[in-house]
């Protein structure tokens, strides 16, 4: 009996750990066209761009993605899709073009920001700001 309880505790512990560490890997694949992937960022990540990016992030993104991009915003719990952890390598290793494409086009819970932020520079400022989440 003691063994059974021990095994159950170990299994439950491992399961919960595996759920915790799976995080970004469990997300639905989001393919990006090659030409978008390779798109060059025309906006330098200078102080002005990061300031503008932060302002846009706080208005449009923070409620779901959290203030540090950890996916822990106040609305994150209500989403059907996992907003992901932007501090992790799998997001930070993506090209600027990929982040720009996903920000612009959106899918599922993620809105299309091409309509809300029609100036492409605004979305590039957001991409530059997302880079600051890298740990």
């Amino acid at each position, binding site marked *: 009996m003691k063994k059974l309880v021990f095994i159950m505790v170990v299994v439950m512990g491992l399961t919960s750990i595996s759920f915790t560490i799976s995080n970004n890997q469990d997300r639905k694949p989001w393919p990006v066209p090659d030409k978008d992937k390779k798109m060059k960022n025309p906006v330098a990540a200078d102080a*002005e761009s990061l300031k503008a990016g932060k302002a846009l992030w706080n208005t449009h*993104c923070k*409620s779901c993605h959290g203030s540090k991009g950890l996916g822990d915003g106040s609305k994150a719990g209500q989403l059907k899709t996992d907003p992901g952890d932007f501090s992790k390598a799998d997001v930070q290793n993506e090209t600027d073009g990929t982040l720009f494409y996903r920000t612009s086009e959106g899918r599922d819970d993620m809105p299309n920001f091409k*309509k809300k932020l*029609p100036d492409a520079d605004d979305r590039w400022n957001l991409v530059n700001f997302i880079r600051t989440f890298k740990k």
Partner: protein
Amino acid sequence: MKQLIKISNRLLLMSVCVIFLASSALAQDDKETTVEKPAKAKPVKNTFQSVWIIDNQTVMVPVKKTLEMDIMHRFGTVKKGYEDFWGFFAPSNIRLGASYVPINKLQVGIGITKRNMLWDASAKYSIITQTPHKYPVSVSFYTNMAYDTRKDKDGSIFKYESQRMSFFHQLIIARKITDKLSVQVAPSLSHQNAVNGYYTKNDSTGTATFKEMKFDHFAIALSARYKITNVTSVMINYDQPLTKHATNNPNPNFSFGVEMNTSSHSFQLFLGNYYNLSPQQNNLYNKNNPFGYTDFDDTKVKGGNFVIGFNITRLWNY
């Protein structure tokens, strides 16, 4: 007519002076930015976060294909205190509105207000947008037409259908002085189609009529917004009537409050003197006075007639 032109010229001159004085004192940030990147002279964005600043329109016109829904509420005056919970349980005024941006720079809208069952149709056009080295200010023109749809079977309120109509025109001049501070000056003209009056003389030598008010009324609105954080701001606004009427002169309006924004919402909570939700009705008929004063017959009139109000806007982009 000459007097009207004189007044409107003065208004414009005053507006431009106020904007430039404020700009020259506080425009240091812009100068620094443009020196670093002179090639990137893009129009300034987000001079205000919403198309409303309390009771006035801002210079902003949302991006093309934006649908906006407005819910606006004004409670009773706070004067009775706990008796009606500072106006919250007093009869309130409500406006429901919707607007759309079909082409760049033009917003058109409709709305209905509970008081007088007043329908309004409006248009706002962004004439110029503040751009470093090009335009020091943003300028928009706002106009609306309102139609009073109250029941009046015996014709005791309106003799003619046209008397139900009123109009409002406003030139809105604004400058985003720093990332946090934006100011706005907005001279306006309100027009009412019906004015009460009576004959003071009506005989064989001719007629003379006493009119309680003039048909046209000029006013000026001064507004400012200061951002505390990226999504929270404080707002302040003052409306000064300029036209002197024979009787029923409207009171000025002083209002202040906070604004909270999300990606698609703007929520404004404030105290002010305007109870109506139509700019021409507010400018022509405001009975709530912010400050105490002594009347022409030496009677002291108490001020502090503020109402609590809120504006909620929801945006959709198509």
